[in-house]
């Protein structure tokens, strides 16, 4: 132990620490919960503090290095009332999504503005360069710093509201965009909103309300899973497989168990073998159940072997090293096509996994669906095109890794506080594994530092719970950044072949999509992700004959699972690339060709009912097929064309700049269409009750992971109940407290959970109106209106919500006014979008630089345009990484070579392309206040748009992702 004296937030502090402890860890011990774990190597910046006034990652600083120095955390700004102007600016601009790195960004702003009260954009982006917050695309954080600077300079600032634009189209027909019209020139952080005349002006919905969780995030208050302290807490560590494929012949835990401070060592010999599938999905979960908590076989590098609970992390790590495992190493296979070849190693040869389609060929699922007769149509068609695309493995990279704390409460029920998108699925799936009934388990989801699908999984909760039972102590298990790469979940690699036929008029007459998905060592989301690929790959365009053939293969790569977009980004890369190639093949303008064939209002989505978990046999012709009821695509295209300067794509002088001989420029487009939840499957519940002061508690099972879901759902309730958003106290989600919700996935929260909120609020409103009518002496309760936190009679008399609450709770015919509702949707209205990009290619080196990304989205009515545009900015930034720079690199044994941020490259603030986001309103009748989904569609178009822009720039088409320099150079070289 060394004794360390620091000045912490202006106050002298002394603390004892072992020499290896990081400054970040010591600060958290001192109660500075704003200092977050993102990695141990500093690249995420989540643990950045001010060290003698300079922004520095406290996770790479040893605590003794700080002895004698001044340390500042965001807590220094916190007062009993309100927010510091910098914190206020971050909330007002919508710069905090999950807010996991809020403390670091706010401190960096403080340090920057101290030296430079009016920083340039470059200086702001440089300051943010060490804080990875790609969920925001860095657009609104830059605006927040600017706003904070203005506030501190004492200037008046404008409210953060959308830039309202005139429509360029009549909503239905295409227009020719004037090349001289540069469009609006305004702060890119403000969404461009194109209103629809169909949409009425409302009091709360449609407004840029500040996020309901803004205060706690901006202050760094303890809100996340790890931000609690528990007496007797034990630390868990997992022993992971060093081999891609091996049998565990022997496991000797004696030395580990004997190590002082070790309380439990679990592995396959002392843990019940209960089969499950870890994907967080509705009961009964897609089969096969091909996992157990600890197996006697490992199937990828990073597969679980054993777990330890000990007094400290260091003891747990030492114990993990002391477990002696004897492996029989087996041959491994990593490529999905090779895995299906005869002679490939059989990955799931165990007898107790059922429902594998073809075990000997590693084919876990095979499915197909057809409309019409594809082969006959292709045979008869004048033009047939075929192309194969390969897409790769990437990771969600939530800055908060997976973390779970599990303990037995006073009733000896299992409480699991965990970073999850699916608390209710987790409770149900955990029960059999730990031998407890569902009623004896409580899952709590606090604030989450991003998930993006990685947390749509019952990933580590069983380990923490097993250890808590074994030790009867609280147990904390957190993945490191490295473990997050190879021991959590990733995006499925796929091989996709499209074969399409068009007639002489450019109409698609047949489309055949053949897909081989790589689900790695376990099935989890393998069935449903590839199903969504088929659904999305065959839904964007009208075509009388469609066919989907799909194999899902086991391999020995780290396990793919859910990742925002869920199979659509893969499919739409292939589809939008293929459609571009067809257009060029028949000498048509690609956008015109796509427009001729894309689905719009009134068109049937005819393959949708025949693919997926609840698919109807394609031999059965349904009476009715889902149809498109709203589409703003033409307005999206027009706004996007103007934003990107689309006319330049045909200008040779622009494409080949004379002063930069090795540069070629290009523009690219992709048509995007997604869904809003899973029809007939996703369900969300909500309960609302009235409090004495006229405020309302709203409990939702919906899972806000930083998306702004709590805010958007609160706005829906506030609108119905005629109160301000801050009169709705939103709580999500806790399996003991809140109604059920399937969870945060499939772009379902606004549309499905939002409709549940709408219905629950309507139930409360009905009762309020009845009681108000009595109080006001009105005969017809339906004539009462709620607004401005009062109930109004037609004659203008009114009663306040507080008076009504006190009256009904305490005075007369006492009752608790409350309402509950849940909602399951038969519909899945598609949001549409036009994605445009501008790029430059260095034709000598193959380096692609993305200059600008524009996305114009029709998400129906954006309940909150600021959070909606934040979703688009962050989604596009993740999509950019997928297209451009992120990839898993392995050695020949299946060990990941780049399990660190940097070598695994995600975009940071000082290298971002320009972005511009347009929200094109349409009124979707089936959605709450006209809303459709917005969360996932930004993932769909960037990769194909860049590919198509590379064609525009160089004439070369590249069919594999990502567009890293050597791949592009090789393609240019061989062209």
């Amino acid at each position: 132990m060394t004794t360390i004296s620091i000045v912490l937030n202006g106050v002298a502090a002394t603390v004892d620490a072992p020499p290896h402890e990081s400054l970040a860890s010591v600060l958290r011990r001192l109660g500075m919960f704003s200092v977050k774990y993102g990695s141990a190597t500093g690249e995420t910046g989540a643990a950045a503090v001010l060290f003698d006034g300079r922004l520095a990652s406290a996770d790479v600083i040893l605590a003794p290095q700080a002895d004698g120095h001044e340390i500042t955390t965001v807590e220094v700004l916190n007062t009993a009332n309100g927010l510091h102007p910098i914190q206020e600016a971050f909330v007002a601009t919508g710069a905090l999504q999950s807010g996991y790195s809020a403390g670091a960004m706010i401190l960096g702003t403080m340090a920057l503005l101290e030296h430079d009260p009016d920083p340039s954009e470059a200086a702001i982006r440089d300051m943010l360069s060490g804080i990875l917050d790609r969920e925001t695309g860095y657009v609104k954080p830059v605006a927040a710093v600017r706003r904070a600077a203005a506030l501190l300079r004492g200037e008046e600032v404008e409210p953060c509201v959308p830039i309202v634009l005139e429509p360029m189209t009549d909503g239905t027909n295409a227009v020719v965009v004037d090349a001289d019209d540069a469009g609006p020139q305004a702060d890119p952080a403000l969404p461009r909103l194109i209103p629809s005349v169909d949409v009425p002006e409302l009091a709360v919905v449609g407004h840029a309300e500040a996020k309901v969780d803004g205060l706690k995030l901006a202050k760094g208050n303890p809100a996340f899973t790890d931000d609690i302290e528990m007496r007797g807490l034990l630390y868990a560590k997992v022993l992971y497989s060093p081999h891609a494929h091996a049998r565990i012949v022997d496991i000797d835990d004696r030395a580990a168990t004997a190590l002082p401070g070790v309380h439990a060592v679990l592995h396959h010999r002392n843990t019940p073998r209960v089969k499950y599938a870890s994907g967080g999905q509705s009961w009964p979960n897609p089969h096969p159940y091909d996992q157990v908590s600890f197996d006697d076989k490992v199937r990828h590098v990073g597969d679980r072997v054993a777990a330890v609970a000990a007094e400290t992390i260091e003891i747990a790590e030492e114990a993990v090293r002391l477990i002696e495992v004897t492996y029989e190493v087996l041959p491994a296979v990593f490529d999905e096509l090779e895995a299906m070849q005869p002679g490939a190693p059989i990955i799931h040869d165990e007898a107790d996994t059922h429902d594998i389609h073809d075990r000997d060929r590693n084919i876990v699922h095979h499915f197909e669906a057809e409309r019409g007769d594809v082969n006959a149509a292709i045979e008869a068609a004048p033009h047939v095109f075929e192309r194969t695309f390969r897409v790769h493995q990437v990771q969600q990279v939530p800055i908060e890794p997976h973390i779970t704390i599990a303990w037995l409460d006073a009733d000896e029920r299992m409480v699991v506080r965990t970073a999850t998108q699916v608390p209710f699925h987790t409770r149900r799936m955990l029960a059999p594994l730990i031998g407890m009934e569902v009623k004896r388990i409580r899952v709590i989801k606090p604030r989450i530092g991003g998930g993006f699908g990685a947390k749509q999984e019952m990933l580590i909760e069983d380990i923490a719970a097993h250890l808590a039972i074994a030790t009867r102590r609280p147990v904390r298990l957190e993945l490191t950044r490295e473990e997050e790469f190879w021991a959590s979940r990733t995006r499925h690699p796929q091989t996709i072949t499209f074969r399409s036929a068009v007639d002489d008029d450019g109409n698609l007459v047949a489309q055949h999509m053949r897909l081989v998905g790589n689900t790695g060592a376990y099935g989890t989301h393998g069935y449903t992700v590839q199903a969504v690929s088929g659904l999305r790959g065959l839904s964007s365009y009208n075509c009388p004959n469609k066919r989907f053939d799909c194999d899902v293969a086991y391999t020995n790569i780290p396990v793919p699972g859910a990742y925002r977009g869920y199979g659509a980004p893969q499919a739409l890369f292939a589809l939008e690339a293929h459609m571009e190639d067809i257009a060029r093949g028949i000498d048509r303008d690609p956008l015109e060709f796509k427009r001729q064939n894309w689905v719009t209002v009134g068109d049937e989505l005819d393959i949708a009912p025949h693919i997926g978990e609840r698919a109807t046999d394609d031999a059965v012709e349904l009476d009715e097929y889902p149809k498109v009821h709203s589409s703003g695509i033409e307005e999206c295209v027009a706004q996007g064309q103007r934003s990107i300067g689309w006319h330049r794509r045909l200008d040779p002088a622009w494409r080949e700049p004379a002063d930069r001989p090795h540069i070629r420029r290009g523009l690219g487009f992709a048509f995007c269409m997604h869904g809003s939840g899973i029809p007939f499957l996703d369900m969300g519940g909500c309960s609302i009750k009235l409090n004495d002061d006229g405020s309302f508690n709203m409990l939702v099972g919906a899972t806000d992971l930083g998306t702004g879901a709590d805010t958007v759902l609160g706005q829906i309730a506030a609108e119905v109940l005629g109160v301000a958003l801050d009169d709705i106290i939103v709580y999500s989600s806790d399996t003991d407290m809140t109604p059920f919700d399937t969870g945060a996935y499939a772009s379902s929260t606004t549309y499905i959970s939002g409709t549940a909120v709408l219905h629950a609020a309507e139930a409360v409103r009905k009762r309020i109106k009845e009681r108000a009518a009595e109080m006001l002496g009105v005969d017809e309760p339906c004539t009462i209106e709620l607004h401005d936190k009062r109930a109004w009679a037609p004659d203008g008399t009114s009663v306040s919500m507080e008076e009504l609450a006190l009256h009904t709770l305490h005075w007369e015919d006492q009752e608790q006014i409350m309402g509950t509702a849940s909602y399951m949707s038969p519909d899945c209205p598609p949001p549409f979008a036009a994605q445009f990009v501008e790029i430059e290619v260095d034709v000598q080196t193959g380096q692609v630089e993305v200059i600008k990304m524009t996305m114009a989205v029709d998400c129906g009515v954006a309940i909150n345009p600021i959070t909606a545009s934040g979703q688009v900015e962050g989604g596009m930034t993740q999509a950019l990484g997928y297209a451009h720079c992120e990839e898993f690199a392995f050695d020949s044994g299946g060990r990941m070579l780049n399990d660190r941020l940097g070598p695994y490259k995600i975009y940071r603030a000082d290298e971002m392309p320009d972005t511009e986001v347009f929200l094109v309103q349409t009124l979707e009748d089936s959605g709450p206040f006209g809303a459709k989904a917005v969360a996932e569609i930004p993932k769909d178009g960037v990769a194909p748009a860049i590919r198509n822009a590379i064609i525009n720039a160089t004439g070369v088409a590249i069919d594999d992702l990502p567009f890293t320099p050597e791949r592009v150079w090789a393609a240019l070289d061989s062209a």
Partner: protein
Amino acid sequence: MYRIDAYHRPTSVTEAVGLLAEPARLALAGGTTIRHDGGSTPTEVVDLQALGLDRIESERDLVRIGAMVRLHDLVGHEAVPDLIRRTARSEMPSTLRTIATVGGTIGAAGSDSTFLAALLVHDASVQFADGRSVALSSVLNDGLATGELIVAVDVHASGTTAIAGTGRTPADDPIVAAVARSAEDGVRLALSGVGPTPELVEPGDLDRLEPPGDFRGSSAYRRHLAQVLSTRVLQELS
């Protein structure tokens, strides 16, 4: 991965050299490249922060940069040549640049470091605690021996410079970067990403390079980049 068992903070260079003479002790400069979150190799660290090695001094063409100067301090320092300032910025993001030091960066000898390539073309020589002055290229080639302590690096500030690199994204560590400096005594060219450490290269020797390949760039691709980027920086200076 180290298991750090003890921490020392000497207050003089002599004391530091004495401490570092013991085996299993590691000089701790900034600490950005030392993994201390677990591991089984027992290690003691000797923190160099209190040795007064954090000064930048210049006299005519010569700039002496203390080993404990943080990269961040170079970025804004007027006496420091532009290329060194620029590459000090690109070497690390904001939250690590304030921690990482010049001496530590030399000790780490990262193959991708454009900052080290910039020092090389500025004719850097490394000053050791025992008074020796050794060309940076030799230090990178030979590595640091146990107990050796860098106290400063001297660079020549004059001349015009150029830089070109190819990376996956604009702020990525370049797969290969070429930097060049033209001064009175001739033109120097240095490359990163073509060998175990950045190195000075004669333009005529470019086709003799045999870069190790990795997932960001094969050997052949790196050789190609070395040619293209070297040509660009040399043309810019001619």
